[in-house]
C-alpha cells in the first residue's frame, strides 16, 4: 500500500499505465477507499478530456486543413519538377 502522496505521484506520472496488474490494483484499491485521491484522479482525467476536446481530431477545421494540404503538396511538386533535371 502506498500513501496518498505516492498514489498521486503514480497517477500524475502515468507510472501505473504500463505497470503490473498488482500495482494497478493497489492504486484502484486506494482510490476506492480515499475520496481525496479519487477526486484528484477524476480531475486529472478531466484535464486530459479537455485537452482532447480542444485539440483532438474533431477540433480540426476541414477548410483550413484542405488549404494547408494544397500548399504543402504544391511546394512538393515544384521541388520535384525543378530539382530533378536528370529524371526521366
Amino acid at each position, binding site marked *: 500500500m502506498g500513501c*496518498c502522496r505516492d498514489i498521486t505521484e503514480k497517477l500524475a506520472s502515468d*507510472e501505473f499505465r504500463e505497470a503490473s496488474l498488482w500495482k494497478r490494483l493497489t492504486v484502484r484499491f486506494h482510490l476506492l477507499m480515499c475520496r481525496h485521491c479519487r477526486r*484528484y484522479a477524476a*480531475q*486529472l482525467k478531466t484535464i486530459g*478530456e479537455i485537452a482532447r*476536446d480542444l485539440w483532438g481530431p474533431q*477540433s480540426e477545421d476541414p477548410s483550413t486543413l484542405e488549404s494547408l*494540404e494544397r500548399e504543402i503538396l504544391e511546394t512538393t511538386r515544384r521541388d520535384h519538377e525543378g530539382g530533378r533535371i536528370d529524371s526521366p
Partner: protein
Amino acid sequence: MAMDDPQFAEKIRAEDPEALRSGVETYLGQIHRTALGAGLGPERAREVTQATFATFIEKAPSFEGRSHVRTWLFGILYHKIREARRGLQQERQMDEIEDVFEGRFDAKGSWVRPPHPVDLQLYDSEIREFFEDCLEKVPTQQRMAFVLREVDELSSKEICKILNISNTNLGVLMYRVRNRLRECLEAKGVKR
C-alpha cells in the same frame, strides 16, 4: 499501404511522390493540431506545420526507417516548435510546482490540503479559457509531453523517442505539467 510497412519507409527514402503525398495526407491533421496544442497560435501553427513537412520531404532520402514515419515526423515538429518557442520560457531543473504539490501532504504522505472540489466541466467555456491560460506558462517540453500523451495518445516509448528523453524523465514531465494545470485550474475555480 500501411505507414509502418517497411516498404513504405523504403518508398519514402526513394522520394516516391505517391508515398510522400500519402505521408502528408495521413499526418497533416495530427501535426497541425499538435502544433496548436503546443500553444503556437493559428498563424505560427500553420507555418510550423508547413516547415515540418518541408523538412520531411527534403530529408526523405536520409530517413533510416528505424523508427515509425510518424515518430520521425513528430521529432521534426518538436524541433520546429522548440525553435518557434525559444526564449519564451526557461527550462528549469527544479520546478516550484514540486514544492507546491509536496506542501499538500504531511510527513507521512497524507493530504493536508486535499484537492478542492472544483467542478471541472468539460464543455464549460470558462474552464476552457482557464485551461489555455494555465498552459501558457508551462515549459515547451512539458507541454509537448502532455499533448503527445493526452491529445495524440502516443505510447510512452514513442513520446520518449520524439522528445529524446528517458522514461523516468517523461514521468517527471507528466507529473509536473498535470499538477501545474490542476493547481492553476483549482486556484481559478476557488476565486469564482
